[in-house]
């Protein structure tokens, strides 16, 4: 009995000292994320599209050279602007410190708290240096959440000069020039594109991200789309096949005009050769009146991860990557239109046909800021239904009602 008790006491002692040690090293992490900048290597992870990697490396090395008082170590990874949101939200800790993303993702990223707010002199500089629309695209409720990087994520009209000698003004002008083997292409089944009709007709995205597409203006826009898809000179390609199809279409002359953006500029230029031309979107008819097609003005922004371990440095890098010099460099290397006021006025930029057309169209386009995430799938359903070419005008109202319901009551 005595032996047992002695043994017991010994073990109890062992156990309780162990517990004591454990409770004291209970490391629940709730520290403030500040950076400790003194004389340590600053490790920054940077994301960019695959074609931007080389350019990014040059820019970051220049940054390190310009700030030689600290040591920098960069890690690069390939995450395209369109994938940025999803990849960050999946695991914010493992995400980059600095990354590019397209501005329609801003609202979701801010709502999830993934972006660091930008303040102080960084904010005032960004506002002063960049065009109003591009700055506005990065602002929510008066707070700046990212640095404007490019102002070229929108769409406009490319056309074959040999068929349409002067820039076409209206949709009917284009359609008149089409035949059964020379068509006009627009990805109307995709919500990003078919919004051009709705926005042009006067529908809106409210500040609390609700739409009114099922009102009279929306119905008019829907009727115009319906009329277009039934025209034999029109062709629609679905999402993944759209870009490749218009590229090969321009090359073998089965397409005379198509709606697309600057990402295809090089390839379309190659396909059309001397007949390469671009201009703003045409007008379309609503109740007998010609209305300019609107569209989405998309901007690429550079965001800083709020979880970054080196927040100050990351913000510095973000500002650096979007300064005037680097925006010009981005234009020269990758033909991306700058959002910086001075850079945009550069002669070389103005001479770029695609960017000029985009700039012209941008006056009529609206920002993607207030577009809720549920809009894309819903409007795509609508567009896809219409593209089949069998929908009667009378059914349009019901379909629009469905779209609005899916967007405004997203079951959350």
């Amino acid at each position, binding site marked *: 009995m005595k032996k047992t008790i002695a043994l017991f006491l010994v073990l109890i002692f062992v156990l309780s000292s162990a517990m004591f040690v454990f409770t004291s090293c209970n490391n629940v992490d709730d520290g403030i994320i500040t950076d400790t900048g003194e004389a340590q290597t600053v490790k920054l992870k940077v994301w960019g599209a695959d074609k931007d990697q080389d350019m990014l490396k040059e820019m970051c090395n220049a940054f390190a050279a310009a700030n030689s008082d600290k040591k920098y170590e960069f890690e690069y990874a390939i995450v395209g602007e369109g994938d940025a949101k999803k990849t960050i939200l999946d695991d914010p800790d493992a995400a980059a410190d600095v990354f590019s993303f397209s501005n329609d993702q801003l609202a979701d990223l801010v709502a999830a708290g*993934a972006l660091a707010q930008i303040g102080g002199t960084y904010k005032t500089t960004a506002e002063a240096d960049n065009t109003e629309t591009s700055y506005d695209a990065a602002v929510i409720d008066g707070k700046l959440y990212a640095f404007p990087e490019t102002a070229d994520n929108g769409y406009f009209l490319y056309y074959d000069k040999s068929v349409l000698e002067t820039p076409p003004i209206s949709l009917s002008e284009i359609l008149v020039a089409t035949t059964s083997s020379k068509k006009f292409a627009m990805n109307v089944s995709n919500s990003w594109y078919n919004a051009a009709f709705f926005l042009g007709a006067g529908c809106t995205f409210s500040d609390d991200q609700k739409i009114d597409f099922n009102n009279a203006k929306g119905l008019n826009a829907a009727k115009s789309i319906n009329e277009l898809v039934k025209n034999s000179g029109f062709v629609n390609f679905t999402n993944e096949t759209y870009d490749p199809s218009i590229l090969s279409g321009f090359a073998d002359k089965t397409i005379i005009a198509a709606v697309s953006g600057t990402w295809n500029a090089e390839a379309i230029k190659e396909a059309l050769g001397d007949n390469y031309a671009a201009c703003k979107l045409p007008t379309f008819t609503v109740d007998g009146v010609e209305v300019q097609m609107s569209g989405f003005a998309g901007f690429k922004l550079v965001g800083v991860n709020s979880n970054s371990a080196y927040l100050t440095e990351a913000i510095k890098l973000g500002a650096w990557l979007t300064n005037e010099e680097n925006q010009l460099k981005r234009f020269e290397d990758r033909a991306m239109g700058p959002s910086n006021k001075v850079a945009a006025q550069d002669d070389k930029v103005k001479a770029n046909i695609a960017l000029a057309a985009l700039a012209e169209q941008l006056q009529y386009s609206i920002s993607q800021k207030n577009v809720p995430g549920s809009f894309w799938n819903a409007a795509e359903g609508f567009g896809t239904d219409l593209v089949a070419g069998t929908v009667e005008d009378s059914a349009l109202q019901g379909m629009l009602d469905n779209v609005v319901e899916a967007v405004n009551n997203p079951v959350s």
Partner: protein
Amino acid sequence: MHKGSFVMDYEYLLAGKLKRGFIRIRESFKSFPSRALLFFINLPRNIGAVFIKIYSHFKEIVKIFVLGDMATKLSFVVMGMGCIARKRFIRGFLYLLLQVLFWFFFLTFGVVYIAGLGTLGTVSQLEVYNEGTGIFEYVKGDNSMLILLYGIVSLFLVVLYIALYFSSIRECYRTEMLKKRGGQIPFFSDDVQDLMDKDFHKSLIFVPSVMIICFTILPIIFMVCLAFTNYDRLHMPPGNLFTWVGFENFRSIMGFSDSSLLAKTFGKILGWTFVWAFFATGTNYIFGMLLAMMINKKGIKFKRLFRTVFVLTIAVPQFVSLMFMRNVFADTGLFNVFLQSAGIISEPVKFLTDGDIARVVVIFINMWVGIPYTMLITTGILMNIPNDLYESARIDGAGTAKQFFAITLPYMLFVTAPYLITQFIGNINNFNVIWLLTNGGPMTSDMYASGRTDLLITWLYRLTTGEQNYKIASVIGIFTFIISAVFSLIVYNYSGSARREGEFQ
């Protein structure tokens, strides 16, 4: 033997083995509704039995406490005490080590998360402006998702620990009883030997089970819990918290709240999923079998060559061949170009972009993908059908068709019934084919975030990656899971297969 058993019928007893199989199948289908009902009626009783068992464990432990001697009682505080006191050192210390490890885990990790499970976090991310550097700094708040996940993991480990705790106490008590009776106290080497023999099953299933628990069971529990929260785009960690909302999501999907679009969509997709699974499984099975029979037929040469040709398609990664098919059947794809240049059609056929046509085309392309598999399987089995059955049938004057329906088909169905069920369930969850061919499209405004060829599972995927609507996705996942599970449990357990297990051995 339950009511209505056919096993004692004269017809059954007199019939040959094959006919018995056929009768079994017929009876399975006939009694399906009543068995389904029985399953659900028994369910509460079975669940209740589990709780009763747990309760009896507790009773047993209390009994041990009361009856055991000092050392055993002390084992309640220091795990393994009783074993150590009776010279079963290694085993005892192992228990103690596990106890220490558990408390280490619990105090440094588990406690925090389990505590947070009730509210799923109360402190959200804090933003603080640092005047000095002009930077906004962030204080990390609670991460609801991690709290939920790690909370579940911790809870699970706690339960595991309690089971281990009980087992250690029982072991100590057993050792005490053994000593009292004057029996031999087992050495540790004896324990090890047991693991290789008497308790071999424990060693065998230990590691795989751990893996399954980590990678399948815990995630399932996590997903089920998600369905009761409001985790979606507007409640995204780390910036926001989400919390429990009870059955609200279920109510939305079943149509009891404002959004009827969701309920309608769910119904439509559910219907199409079943139709798809039925046709996909059926066509692959029948045609695969026919193909195997053709190759297998006496007098056909190059058997190996033909089989190899068909099997080659399996070697190409599925997404490659499906992507290829998608290109070929596109509106401007090869197939359309071919048909147009041959003058058969003037306008391209919307193989994959028209809702109704796409549904049919998808089933056809799935045949191309799946028939080689079924062909392989049925080949092996076909070779096992005794030839004299066919001989006697032919002598009796039966033609090929009759032979097929009277001999081959019943035999195959009987033997591969479980395989068919697995395939059916597999097709309900067949993500690759649908997603890669049409992305679930064509999208339509009639349905919420989904298209005409969407299965439950592709819809689920789009909801998570496209709209971050995790809560609804979880509900769909649960429904898919329940449907598959109930269906397969009923058919598998009550078909002849489970009972026949003993026959071969």
